[in-house]
Structure formats: C-alpha cells, structure tokens
C-alpha cells in the first residue's frame, strides 16, 4: 500500500471523535458522503474570515478576491477532470441538480414524444426520477440496460437497445450499491455510433478514480463535492461546449444574464448562463481545496489503495456464514460492499454496529429498482475511502459476528 494512511487520517479532524464515550468512530459510509480534511474546512473558514463578498459584479478588494477564489476553484476542477476549458464546468448544488439541469434544459429542448432515453437498472434515483418526470410530461420512452446476476451491465442487451436509435444514454459510472465500475468509454463510444448523446452520473467515480472527460468523450458528466472530501451544497455539471452553448438557460435571475429589460433578457455566456443568483461561493472555495487535496495524494494511489482494501473486505465478509454479498468481484468494482445477513434486517445490522462506533448505511441507498431486481427491500452497505484501514474492516467483521449472536 503506497498510501500513508496514518498521516492521511490525521488530516481528518472527525477521526478524533468518539461516537459515545470510549467508542472511536469507524466511518464506513463514504459512498453517502465523505469526511473532510482540515485543508477543506480551513479554506472555507479562511474565506469567511478574510475574503467573504459577493462576486462578479463587485469592484472592491473583497469582491475581487472572492471572484478570483470562486473562479480559481473552477479552473482546478476543470483540470482535475481534464475539461478543455473551465467554462464547461457549471456549478450546481449536487449531482442530482446537474442531471436535472440536463433534463430541464437540454432534454426539453431536444426530446419529443417517442424519443428514447436509455438508462440502466442500477441507477440511483437521481438518474431515474428526472426522466420519469420528463416521460410524464413529454411522453419520451425509457429503456434500461439490464443488470446481470453478478452485478454487471448486460452490454449485449445494450447493443440491441441501440438499434432503436436512442437520443440519450444516461448511466452511472460506478454503482453506489454494487460498486460496479461500468465500462464508460465503451458505452459512450457505442452510444455515439448510434447517434445518441451521453450523460455520465459520476457521483461515485470522480471521487475515487481518475476521470478524464476528454478521453471518455462524454457529452455531460455530473458529480458532487461532498463525496470527494469537499463541502455540501455544491456539485458540477460538465458539458461539451457546443452543447452547453446551444442549450437554453435553466434558472433565471442575477448573474446568468447579459442584459435585462423590463420584458425580456439576453442570457450570459458560459458558465454563468447556468448559474443564477448568488452561488455557493464558500463551497466552491472548499471544492477547490478538496481537488487540491485529492491531487496531492494522487488519484491513482487512492484507487489502488481502495482496491486493496475492498479485496480484503470482500474476502473477510464472504467468510461470515449467512452473509450474501452483492456486486461483482473486487476486480470490477470500487470500494463498496453491500450485503444481507441471514434474516436480520439491514436496519438492525446497522444500528447494532453503530453501538460499536461502526457507521455503515442500511436501506435501498436510493436505488430501489435495483433492490427490487435482486428481490430484497434493503441491504447493508460498508464503503471505503482513502482514510479507511484493514483494521476497520476487521472491526466490521467482528461487529457482524456480534449481530449474528444477538439474533442467533
């Protein structure tokens, strides 16, 4: 393992806390949201203490500093995903709003009744509900790339669906339940060959893998800061320039305009066209610091370390009698281990583990259709990030044995 996890953990103040007296925190819920390093917390702190001002239209020192910090973060994020230009990085609240932006602006301008959008059976609700809404409103059609028993996308079924000339293929880069890392490059290439646009839900990939939007040739890509060591309240929609430029605005208001008359307006240029009102300024600054932090550790090192940890976790978990794991082998997945345990309900598993300071998530993880597919209402999910350790995996396994005992 090339990561110095000991010193990484020291960067995260939360690991000094105990969940109850004498019980240290074992945080295995980074897929829901990650913890924040001191550099991110301090960047926002410092922003509020020294430079806080509204941006863009101010000529005073604070406004200029705030603008430079806000736009500087955009440059960093653009570089992090290898976007050709920072203008193609639109700040949103989160992955969910990014996808909705595409659904409201691009899709309503480009899709009509009968047009096909391809999704997958492993989508997060954020990449389902916006399309359900558009289906109800517009009569678009939805089809789903099936998930196989071992948690992979069925690409041959996908190829068959492509014969129906979809207008958009929108899919998750990495499943937040199965951990499956989908072959995004190939899915996008095939979509383009069939004449479809592509949207990648990168909520789980950008935090954990090196993602290069130009190498992927993806049309739209959405992710959230809070899952990648950054603050809540900010996310990104990346888009190809010509697409973003051709799209109508989404929210109307200050900053997204070039000119406003009493009865009409002209929209601003990118990226401002899509950023209406006072944005999440401190959060952008924190996002920039998060990207700096992840870059300084190194995304390849993070992926490799998580892979090793996941491999170990899956090995240990599968040993436990009564544990059923979901998703593919460690080879094909990120740091997520979802499981059910005999007849113990995941809520009970999670709550008993919590008594031991172990934070995992239980439920449908905003992927109800996927759970329905596997015939279960809920799973328990442990997930890993750069600050987790094998010792924590061992504690998780011990905890699960205790659950079994209690319910035995």
């Amino acid at each position, binding site marked *: 393992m090339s990561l110095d996890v000991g010193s990484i953990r020291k960067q995260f103040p939360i690991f000094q806390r105990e969940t109850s007296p004498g019980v240290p925190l074992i945080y295995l819920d980074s897929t829901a949201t990650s913890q924040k390093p001191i550099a991110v917390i301090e960047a926002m702190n410092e922003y509020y203490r020294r430079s806080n001002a509204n941006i863009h239209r101010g000529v005073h020192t604070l406004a200029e500093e705030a603008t430079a910090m806000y736009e500087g973060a955009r440059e960093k994020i653009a570089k992090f995903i290898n976007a050709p230009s920072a203008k193609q990085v639109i700040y949103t609240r989160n992955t969910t709003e990014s996808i909705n932006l595409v659904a409201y602006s691009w899709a309503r301008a480009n899709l009509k009744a009968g047009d096909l959008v391809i999704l997958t059976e492993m989508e997060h609700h954020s990449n389902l509900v916006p399309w359900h809404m558009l289906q109800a409103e517009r009569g678009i059609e939805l089809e789903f790339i099936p998930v196989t028993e071992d948690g992979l996308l069925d690409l041959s079924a996908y190829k068959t669906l492509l014969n129906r000339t979809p207008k958009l293929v929108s899919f998750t880069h990495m499943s937040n339940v199965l951990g499956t890392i989908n072959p995004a490059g190939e899915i996008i290439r095939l979509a383009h060959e069939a004449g479809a646009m592509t949207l990648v839900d990168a909520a789980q990939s950008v935090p954990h893998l090196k993602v290069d939007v130009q190498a992927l040739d993806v049309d739209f890509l959405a992710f959230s800061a809070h899952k990648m060591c950054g603050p809540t309240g900010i996310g990104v929609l990346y888009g190809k320039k010509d697409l973003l430029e051709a799209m109508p605005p989404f929210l109307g208001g200050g900053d997204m305009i070039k000119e406003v008359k009493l009865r009409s307006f002209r929209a601003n240029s990118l990226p401002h066209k899509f950023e209406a009102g006072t944005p999440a300024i401190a959060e952008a600054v924190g996002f920039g610091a998060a990207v700096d932090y992840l870059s300084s550790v190194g995304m390849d090192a993070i992926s490799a370390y998580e892979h090793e940890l996941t491999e170990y976790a899956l090995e240990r978990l599968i040993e436990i009698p009564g544990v059923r794991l979901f998703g593919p082998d460690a080879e094909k997945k990120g740091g997520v281990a979802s499981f059910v345990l005999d007849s*113990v*309900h*995941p*809520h*009970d598993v999670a*709550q*008993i583990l919590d*008594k*031991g300071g172990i934070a995992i998530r*239980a*439920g*449908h993880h905003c992927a109800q259709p996927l*759970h329905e597919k596997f015939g279960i*209402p*809920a799973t328990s999910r442990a997930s890993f990030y750069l600050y987790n350790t094998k010792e924590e995996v061992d504690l998780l396994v011990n905890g699960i044995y*205790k659950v079994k005992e*209690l*319910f035995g």
Partner: protein
Amino acid sequence: MDDLYREVIIEHYKNPGYRGHLDPHDIQFEDNNPLCGDHIEITIQTDENEKVADARFDGHGCAISQASADLLIESIIGKPLDEVKQLNKDHILEMLGIELGPVRLKCALLSLKVLKAGVYGLGEASDDLVE
C-alpha cells in the same frame, strides 16, 4: 448493545404473540415504510361497545418495527377505540424502553401509524398521526 436491543425487543421480534390476520375483521389497514421496505398490516375485530375484541399484525421488517407492532397489538386488546385513537408515540417508546433516532423512530411508529389510520378510517396514513 443491550440498551438498544433490550431483551423484550428481541423476544417480541423472534416470538411475536400477535402475528396473524383476522378474518372476518371490522378494521383493516396496511402501509409500508419506504425507507426500508418495512410492511405492517393490522386487522381488528371490535365488539358492541366499540372496544377492540381482538387484533393481529402481519408484515415484515426490522426488529424494531416488528417488536413495536407486537407490543402495540398486545396493549390495545380490550381497549375502547376512542382510547386507541389517543395513543401517541410516547406509548410506543415507553413499551420499547429505548431512545431512537429519527430514522429508527419511523420504524418504531409504523404500526401505530397503520393502527390509527385504520381506526380513524382514513384513506392514507400520514406521519402527522403519530407526532
């Protein structure tokens, strides 16, 4: 751990006394907790004095939701419906004897919500019933 999963909960979860379905019944209602898929159905037979003559619950879910349902049914048999209508979340929490966070509270109160929606004869169960 013991304070959370008191013996009474594990006991009622593993060996519920009132699991079942009454047919015929005078009151029936069911609902689920979308957060976790817990499901509860309650059936009640009433007597001429508007009291609960007999009752059962059915469903599946976590220990908290199932034990709460069993304890709740046990506690209402023989009670006037008017009294059942007054039951609130404290009734459940007292019987469970533990503290619960907001998510688990939903599990614990599912059966009460179902019960009250049924007794009031509502079309849909609302969280407001148990607040």
